[in-house]
């Protein structure tokens, strides 16, 4: 019963997010980038549903466009981290021996780095643009994917159907691709959903620290960061983007839960 509730709410929130992002491509109440200095810092009104920011830009339109950018960044980063992490994780888990030890040593060293700051450094080197952000965050999250994939591969290697595949005469590589990988995807899928949330958070955090997707393209992160100085005089500026991030995260986490329950039935019912 709980699983269905998770899927329903989670699905609805994600649909809302993707819908807004798609709609924003064609229509937004105002041009999100047009500056209207006379309408600076206006509270939510019938004209501007969510008010205007310090440059007089319409917050609602920026939030809608921000949905698109944030989703694209999160999706591409997760794909990069999962792809890289799976390949490295599989080799480490399957090949064992020295390669495994070296990969894990580097992996642990990277994990010891505070993720956000690793991303910060990479972004400064590569330059603060979407591509830089995706590369930076992808690099920051690959180690956790490597750790999960390696752990899963190690447990699957012991299963009898891998030995059966050997008995049939399949080569080691074939066994890995045909049998190990598909079964390792389940835990990675669950990790990917939560990672989607982490990336959204990281993008906002980076904007807070002064780097992040460059303006004027709005993302929820840089809108939230920009609202900090006006917290007292224009409180609504920080409510809208923050709420969007929270709802998206809630959607992602709920979907992640239902995915995990479906893959591991024991957790769902008693």
């Amino acid at each position, binding site marked *: 019963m709980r699983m269905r509730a998770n899927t329903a709410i989670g699905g609805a929130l994600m649909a809302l997010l993707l819908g807004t992002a798609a709609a924003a491509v064609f229509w937004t109440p105002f041009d999100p980038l047009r500056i209207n200095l006379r309408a600076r810092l206006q509270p939510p009104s019938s004209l501007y549903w969510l008010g205007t920011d310090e440059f007089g830009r319409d917050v609602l339109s920026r939030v809608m466009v921000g949905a698109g950018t944030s989703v694209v960044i999160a999706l591409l980063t997760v794909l990069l981290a999962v792809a890289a992490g799976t390949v490295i994780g599989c080799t480490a888990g399957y090949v064992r021996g020295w390669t495994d030890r070296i990969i894990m040593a580097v992996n642990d060293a990277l994990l010891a780095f505070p993720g956000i700051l690793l991303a910060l450094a990479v972004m400064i080197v590569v330059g603060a643009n979407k591509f830089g952000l995706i590369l930076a965050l992808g690099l920051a999250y690959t180690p956790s994917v490597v750790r999960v994939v390696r752990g899963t591969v190690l447990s699957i290697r012991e299963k009898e*159907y891998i*030995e*059966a*595949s*050997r*008995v*049939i*005469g*399949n080569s080691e590589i074939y066994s890995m691709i045909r049998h190990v990988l598909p079964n390792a995807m389940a835990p990675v899928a669950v990790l990917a959903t939560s990672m989607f949330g982490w990336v959204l958070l990281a993008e906002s955090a980076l904007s807070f620290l002064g780097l992040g997707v460059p303006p004027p393209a709005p993302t929820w992160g840089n809108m939230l960061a920009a609202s900090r100085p006006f917290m007292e005089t224009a409180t609504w500026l920080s409510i809208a983007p923050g709420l969007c991030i929270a709802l998206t995260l809630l959607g992602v986490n709920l979907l992640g839960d239902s995915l995990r329950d479906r893959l591991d039935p024991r957790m769902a019912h*008693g």
Partner: protein
Amino acid sequence: MTAPLLRVDRLRVEAARSGAVIVDDVSFAVERGEFVAVVGESGSGKTAAARAVLGLLPPGLQKAGGQILLDDVDLATLSPRRMRALRGPVVGMVFQEPMVSLNPAMSVGAQMAEGLALHERIDRREIRRRCLDMLARVQIRDPEHTFNAYPHEFSGGMRQRIMLASVMLLKPKLLIADEPTTALDTLTQREVLDLMVGLARDHGTSVMLITHNLGLVSRYAQRALVLRQGKVIESGDTRQILSAPREAYTRQLVEALPRRGTAAVRRQGGEPLVSVRGLRVAFAGRQRLFRRDAGVSAVNGVDLDIGVGETVAVVGGSGSGKTTLGRAMLRLMPTAGGEIRFRGKDVTATANRDFRLSSQLVFQDPYSSLDPRMRVGEIVAEPLRHVPELTTGERDKRVAAMLEEVGLAGLGRRWPHELSGGQRQRIAIARAIVRQPAFVVADEPVSALDMTIQAQVLKLFERLQAQYGFACLFISHDLAAVEQVADRVVVMQGGRIVEQGSRDDIFDRPQHDYTKALLAAAPVLDFAGPATAHALG
């Protein structure tokens, strides 16, 4: 006769959510000091019925009707607190899985003392003394050390003894044993059950043994109760039920017990298909930082020949090296010495493609040997990948035919988790045989299945072997199954073959003491001795 210790009247247990009926209108009684067996296959509701007595139904199940009178007290009327007062001193329970029946984070002594401290007003020294006595009573070598040690330091058999001791410490009037020895090998099984019976007799405790193994019922129980899909099929004196069962299902259960079939000698003589000389397999010890522990040799100099189409059974307790021998002969494990010849060619070192393609392995656990992400049809078809000249059309036809032969026609599109244990084992066999191998190693192929299904799968295996003529190395600790299937029998202990001979020589005229002990421990139906005398003998 005083009122029975336990009277269960029209008990009904349902699944909380789906409302499915697990135990349907079951009534039975257990006299004081009596030994009753509850028999049934998985899904028959025997465990649910037993746990209802303790009021400890697993989550999701609930008592929907009926009355349970324990020591003349209607359990329904008891408050949770008074119900807890019964658990331990009045009714005790022993469980199936030794590995998880003791709390790993608490010392053995602490867990044993827990029950005593709850129910009796005695000081710590007295509790300790009683625990040590009981540990000695269950033949544990060093009670003092065991008292302070942790569960993970003991083998399955030892843990079962500790659990038995901690339950019997409270001198319960009724002991419920839920498949206490299923996870143990035959020798340990015999020791633990004898201990249980002895302890029960010391304190006049009546025992309710839940099992699917009719051999144990015949040896220990005075009365038996047969359950199927939650209903009582038959109940009465053990000897009467086993020798002259009234109901068809009971008869089917009795017949499922493997028994010595006609000795169809299939050995054609001539050159053996597979021959092994002085085979040795050693496991490296645990890798310490700078040195390695001393290695353990699992297989220590084995000579064995298997003729074309012949079935050689390998029997022995756990740790005797029989599984390692099977894996080594298929070259799935590195060998430390000795030689393996297949059709006259030495395959020990070089990776012989022909040997690999014409030898197969059937695993014990149906849940772990099939890839959960592949459909059943794809699993059976996978070995045909290495048969180049087959077109996809021919391949599909061959897979369909194979499924037909193992009795699972039309199930090609299903996923493994949608099938029962028995069906999955048939798929594993189909996968092994679809490429018509010359040599099949079957590692405990049926021991994980229920009795009736075991019989069906064994019959299927014999039919396919007769039809395809493959040689088979049949590894099992279940002598009954071996007796039905084997041409020749090999007995292994500590990595060596202690005795070898035809099936009749081994079963009728065992020479080696270990073989005799194995045969004695095997709970084969023994119609000669009276059930009651034997149980209490």
